[in-house]
């Protein structure tokens, strides 16, 4: 099935109230591929409150039209308000396809839109390709043991792109694109869930997404106490602390530390995997790291297959000795 004449619309996600999320630029890359194949244009849709700064920033990415729904009820993410505003905007935009980054927000929003518009959705795509008249959307299934290529039968259709799967598009020198405002027209009858409170943790140290070095611990760490030692090592290296899934389940670290298919996807210069066996879900989140250093007591652990450097040994003994060894390097006058 070829596309309609409607645009491919990219949903712009806003972070911390005013920043354009990095996932938008990768989603835009995917949208351009889809638009080229179906011979249509790429537009953006911004939902939020007081979004002028973000809208201005988006004008530097060569889009035809930027649709803006600016409403006091869209200042923070509320699933049903966003769905309601999105549905209203789609009536005007009549898109062929809807593209967004696969983020915590779109994990909630994309399926709601899919069932509301009766539109097929492929979530967490890692690649797209045009093959004999049809776009094919690829994603890992069976924990990454198989990659499936899907076609979607509906117009519009929806895709969410896994972070860091495509290059972000480049910012242009000059502004472009007309801005069209659409009212939110929120209906009280759409709103059935109430957000009563927020608990946002102040993030100590460097964020995983921004870190050049990550030191990550797994089940083999054995305790929250050992993660505090790991944080000491991280601070010495200017690194962020990450984790595989078990330490999050165990409550040793907060959930934003989780690296992997359902956590953060990272690709730092150096990734230390300490006490991490290397489940396929974890590897999906860090395999593109430039250098991987693995420490594990089990010489057969999967992590060694994708590591550049390995030590077979216990993290209880090696974390303190690494702290000491790095300390010596720092203190050594003959360093280089």
């Amino acid at each position: 099935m070829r596309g309609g004449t409607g645009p491919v619309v990219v949903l712009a996600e806003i972070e911390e109230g005013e920043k354009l999320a990095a996932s938008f630029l990768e989603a835009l890359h995917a949208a351009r591929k889809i638009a080229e194949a179906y011979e249509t244009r790429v537009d953006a849709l911004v939902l939020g409150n007081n979004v002028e700064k973000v809208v201005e920033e988006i004008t530097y990415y060569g889009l035809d039209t930027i649709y803006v729904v600016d409403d006091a009820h869209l200042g923070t993410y509320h699933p049903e308000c966003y769905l309601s505003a999105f549905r209203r905007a789609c009536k005007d935009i009549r898109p062929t396809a809807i593209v967004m980054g696969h983020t915590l927000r779109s994990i909630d929003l994309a399926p709601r839109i899919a069932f509301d518009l009766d539109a097929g959705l492929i979530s967490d795509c890692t690649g797209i390709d045009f093959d004999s008249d049809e776009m094919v959307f690829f994603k890992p299934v069976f924990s990454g043991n198989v990659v499936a290529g899907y076609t979607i039968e509906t117009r519009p259709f929806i895709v969410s792109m896994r972070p860091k799967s495509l290059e972000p598009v480049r910012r242009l020198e000059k502004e472009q694109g007309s801005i069209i405002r659409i009212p939110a027209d929120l209906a009280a009858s759409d709103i059935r869930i109430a957000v009563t409170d927020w608990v946002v943790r102040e993030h100590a140290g460097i964020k995983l997404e921004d870190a050049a070095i990550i030191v990550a611990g797994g089940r083999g760490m054995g305790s929250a106490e050992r993660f505090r030692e790991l944080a000491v090592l991280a601070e010495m290296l200017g690194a962020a602390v990450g984790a595989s899934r078990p330490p999050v389940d165990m409550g040793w670290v907060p959930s934003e530390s989780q690296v992997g298919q359902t956590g953060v996807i990272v690709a730092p210069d150096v990734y230390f995997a300490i006490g991490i066996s290397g489940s396929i879900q974890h590897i999906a989140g860090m395999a593109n790291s430039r250098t991987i250093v693995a420490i594990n007591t089990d010489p057969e652990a999967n992590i060694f297959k994708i590591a550049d450097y390995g030590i077979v040994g216990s993290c209880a003994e090696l974390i303190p000795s690494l702290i000491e060894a790095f300390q010596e390097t720092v203190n050594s006058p003959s360093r280089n």
Partner: protein
Amino acid sequence: MNIIVCMKQVPDHTAPRAAFVINHTENKVEFRGIQPVLSLFDENALEAALQIKDAEKDNIRIRVLSVGRRIAKRVMMKSLAVGADDLVTVEDAAFDAIRLDSFETASILVAAIEKIGHWDLILLGRQAADTNAGQTAAGIASKLGMPVITLATKVSVSQGKVIVERLIPNGYEIVEAVLPAVVTVSNEVGELRYPTIVQIREAKSKPILSLGIRDIDVHPEEAKKVKIRTLISPELNHRECKYITGETPAELGRNLVFTLTRDKIIG
């Protein structure tokens, strides 16, 4: 109060890659000697249900619903042993996990839920371990006209409402909805508890209702939106691991730091 937990059986993700064989002629995946297991996030969903039961004691009835091509009862017994009250399975040869899209899966689950009746809260894992689609809950909620709350890290009920701590970047938000409602559960809820020997024995006498596609009113293929075009076996990017040696942990640590510095991996 009645809680339905939707649980799916998936091939054990820890199986070696060679065990997942692609049949290109029929465009499907065959599993060689892989044991089925409960999808991990669905185990978290059951744990969330049990935590509600722990808090509310006698008034909570937990029913596990599983839909699939072939459901191994012995795998499902775990859910009864840890504290679910009964089990409903719906089996059909056409219920191939990855060939069904989320719209078909949702329509089958909705038909089964309507068939068995009586629900206040429906819990699912945030996404299935095989397809990772994460869409079914929104479909069930939409078709049954209920609110849905996703990515729960904690679930409780009080005065006819479900109260959820929901994952957001760097923290959580507290969200509530009037029952009946659908909630998807994330791993922060905690791993599914282990049964005691007594519970394992008692599970054998808990009721199991086995249904087929004819027992529920559904034509999933009419809902289909997404098709599999191709299946590929990805290559794991193997790297040549240089093992660091040393007699003591202190020496291992020094040798690693020396090697990483020498190779200009760290400055």
